[in-house]
């Protein structure tokens, strides 16, 4: 079985703490990535989805 680690990319231009990512940048594993995924600002690169829904009910995550 060939297991390839998932690669997550920013779906928007985003800054968290001292790190900034342009949409499409790979976000390394870590607490930032977990939060970006939770907010819909980063996604598995195999899923071509921009899940950001600003100011809407979906912001609750």
């Amino acid at each position, binding site marked *: 079985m060939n297991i390839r680690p998932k690669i997550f990319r920013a779906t*928007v*231009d*985003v*800054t*968290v*703490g001292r790190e900034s990512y342009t949409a499409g940048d790979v976000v390394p594993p870590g607490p930032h990535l977990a939060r970006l995924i939770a*907010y819909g600002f980063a996604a598995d690169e195999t899923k071509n989805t921009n899940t950001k829904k600003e*100011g809407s*009910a979906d*912001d609750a995550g």
Partner: protein
Amino acid sequence: MTLADGVTLESPVITINAVDYVCAARSVRLIPTDKKADISTFCNPGGERPSSTTWVLDVELLLSYGAVGTGSWNTLNAIRKTRVTCTVKYDDGATAVGNPLATFDIYVPTIPFVDGKIGDSMPITLTATVIGEPVFTTT
């Protein structure tokens, strides 16, 4: 390069758990405080530098009552002591470099039920420490 003119806060976006509080709110603050690390040495006596940062959300809002999603007390009381996602930006226009969106989680504090004197409106301040640091997006 010249900096842009200062902006005025007139129609911000303030959502807590996906509910828009802008018509109940009269002020909003998302303020960082840096702890200071002691880097004092013989070459830098008394030296210090910023270390970890704590962000605090303050929203002054007026108490109102009604269904969840309508009354400010009912809505906040229903999610007291739970972790929720908030968003703040200074203007309700599209998110952009000139109008960044801050997204972050807080634990909602328990808010007062009534707080006022005869004839007063009832402003309260919701104060919560941000979990981690806000995420700022510009697109």
